[in-house]
């Protein structure tokens, strides 16, 4: 049940407890209890909306930034990563394998704003050895949702 609930919330975080209960054929109380425990246990950290920025009038600028870090003897990559995560401009931070160490998503109102964040804040952090900034041009799919609409195709209304 835990897994089914998580899956449903991931598809639609606004789904009601009563719909979850009906879908899974359990009572609403059980659903509530389960979600409470997932929240308390830190499995569910929050609920957000998937927003297609392009549909907004003044859409913001997003950049994906690759960061190379020289790890510290005590904490490895953690101290630098945690420090970077504190900036409000940074919406995602991942430690990854491959050619670089951290992958960030950084948001700003303008290109300049992001560029100056990289130059003044990010690059100057102790342990950050290099950065590469990729500005995001277009989003096609986010949070499992395809952002462009396909042409409607209507199936027959009555079939055997």
């Amino acid at each position: 049940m835990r897994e089914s609930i998580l899956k449903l919330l991931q598809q639609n975080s606004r789904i009601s407890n009563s719909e979850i209960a009906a879908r899974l054929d359990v009572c609403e109380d059980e659903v509530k209890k389960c979600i409470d425990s997932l929240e308390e246990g830190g499995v569910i950290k929050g609920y957000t909306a998937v927003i297609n920025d392009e549909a907004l009038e003044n859409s913001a600028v997003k950049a994906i930034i690759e960061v190379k870090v020289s790890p510290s003897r005590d904490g490895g990559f953690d101290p630098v990563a945690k420090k970077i995560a504190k900036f409000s401009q940074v919406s995602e931070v991942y430690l990854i394998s491959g050619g670089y160490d951290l992958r960030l998503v950084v948001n700003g109102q303008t290109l300049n704003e992001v560029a100056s964040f990289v130059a003044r804040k990010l690059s100057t952090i102790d342990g950050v050895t290099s950065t590469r900034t990729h500005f995001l041009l277009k989003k096609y799919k986010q949070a499992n949702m395809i952002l462009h609409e396909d042409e409607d195709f209507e199936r027959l209304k009555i079939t055997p």
Partner: protein
Amino acid sequence: MDYNKFIAQHIQELPKSGIRKFFDLVNLMDNVISLGVGEPDFATPWEIREAAIYSLEKGHTSYTSNLGLLSLRKEICRYLKDEDFNVEYNPVDECIITVGVSEALDLALRALINIGDEVIYHEPCYVSYNAEIKMAHGVPVKIETNIDNEFSLDAKQIAEKITPKTKAIILNFPCNPTGATLNNEQMTEISKLAVEHDLIVLTDEIYSELTYEERLPSIASYPGMRERTIFLHGFSKAYAMTGFRVGFACGPKELIDAMMKIHQYTMLCASITSQEAALEALRNSKKSMLMMKNEYMQRRNYFVKRFNEMGLRCYKPRGSFYLFVEVTSTKLSSLDFAEKLLEEERVAVVPGTAFGSCGEGFVRCCYAMSLEEIKVATDRIERFVKNMKD
């Protein structure tokens, strides 16, 4: 010109599918939410569509052998052996790829039936069985299943219908339109009966993956059954591939060979694009299939709850994606219920009588619809039922 003198007698006598008539009615209206479909709302999983495109790109646009691509037949036989069906066939001569289960059923009946042979089937059922038997010059013998045992089928119901002319029984579980399945005891008893009376069993297992409660292996795996079973299955439902028109039959090689004769002269082979897509479905789409199945199951749960809350009796179907809902409490016949609901609330359901006369008092609602649509549809049905009862 009097065309009737040209049209074959037995075709003239064949009624048009009850679904067809209702379809014409629905098509005249706008803003209809239709629960009258018999196919998935999902488009075919992308990896399968992509495989079909790739097949075209490579220029695979020829005929295949009459039996179908050996690679697909091998994959099917592996699937039937490994995955829940528990029955083994030789891909070389015990499996034929067809244009849907529709064609497989037609081949099987035409291969088996001499004029006047009786074929037993259970109603309410898929609209084609009765007509297919007649087109093969057989005599359809129906068993009426009922809601008291959740539209399931006991061997003794079959036994009552067996005569010296009985040649075969058609089984369809999980069942369209009722969602019924058979339990182990029923399958065991039916198997014994088939062996005892030396009958062929045609088992249409097109909804087998879409079983939401305990899933039993195919009846072909029961003692004495493999040699007398023609197993019919396809990709339309579980893999959301109705438009690809691809299915298959497995059985003893003598029977498959007889079916192959008709197939080679009438259809030649199934589309190679569809066959290659089907191959991808079996190889790499289990996850997509299970995702769809899980969604159907949740919609079923929601749907059953809503119907029971509004006072329409509806047992929980164990398989397929249909709900067979009893509407007698509204004092309306199936057809009146369906027509009035369509007129007043713009929701289309299929009158139970389209699936046999014992479907009177029921309507079929399909839950291969998004839950949003199901919600709106059930809200409208609820209002309709309330008005009828007031």
